[in-house]
């Protein structure tokens, strides 16, 4: 009798929703549920989860190395917010404002594909580019800014965005 329920449930989990295999603790307050990857790789700064047809990475934004040769200390949060929120741009210096606009252009994320959400008191900003098949998510945590990149289809991007949760 149990099998009647378990088999369809397992199939649904594996093929429809993408069964979550683990949770990545991002901070004291935040975590990310992720499905079983083919491999996990760690560079000096970035954790990479590789799947058959998509990839996800996580890193903490480092204001001093965001762009080589430019120290964004003290400005990183507003700079990143300015990618997605035009109202923030006047608070930046003209040089940073110009760079933020150019970065948004490089993302090639149309306005309708920008992603804005919040978890408790933490803002989430980002967006997906069909052109590049790539999406960015920035989470403004209490003491750090998390940067998640999803390379793959839009549905994967949305799946990752929805799998960020409070803990």
């Amino acid at each position: 009798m149990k099998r009647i329920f378990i088999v369809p449930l397992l199939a649904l989990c594996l093929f429809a929703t993408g069964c979550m295999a683990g949770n990545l603790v991002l901070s004291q307050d935040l975590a990310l549920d992720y499905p079983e990857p083919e491999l996990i790789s760690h560079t000096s700064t970035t954790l990479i989860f590789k799947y058959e047809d998509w990839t996800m990475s996580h890193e903490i934004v480092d204001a001093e190395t965001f762009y080589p040769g430019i120290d964004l200390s003290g400005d990183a949060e507003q700079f990143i917010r300015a990618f997605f929120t035009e109202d923030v741009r006047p608070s930046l210096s003209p040089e940073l404002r110009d760079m933020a606009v150019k970065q948004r252009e490089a993302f090639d994320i149309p306005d309708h594909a920008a992603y804005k959400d919040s978890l408790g008191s933490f803002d989430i900003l980002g967006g997906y580019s069909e052109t590049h098949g790539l999406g960015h998510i920035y989470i403004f945590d209490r003491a750090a800014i998390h940067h998640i990149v999803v390379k793959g289809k839009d549905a994967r991007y949305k799946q990752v965005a929805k799998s960020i949760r409070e803990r």
Partner: protein
Amino acid sequence: MDIYDREHLTEFLVALFGKQANSWHPNEELFNLTYKLVAESGECSEAMRYVPEPLAPGKAPFKWLKKEVRSKFLKTLQENREQYVICLRGAAYNMALEFKMAAQGV
């Protein structure tokens, strides 16, 4: 890639991505991504003067381009890296995950 090509590619990638690129072994995939980065940026096309464009769709630049052309391309990038960093900064940041994966061989 010969030792000079590797040096030129590494120096260019360090200018573009910072110290982390010092530990990246300059392989074919990193060359292909670098070519893609430059080719898709309309803003700084100086280096593209040294390559025959457009490449056939789906062709890997490393295999498609003659060695002399690859070397000239990399030397141009290395010699003008400060200029290229300015115009490629945004596109490079957007492609950073691909470069990191190529450097890791994943």
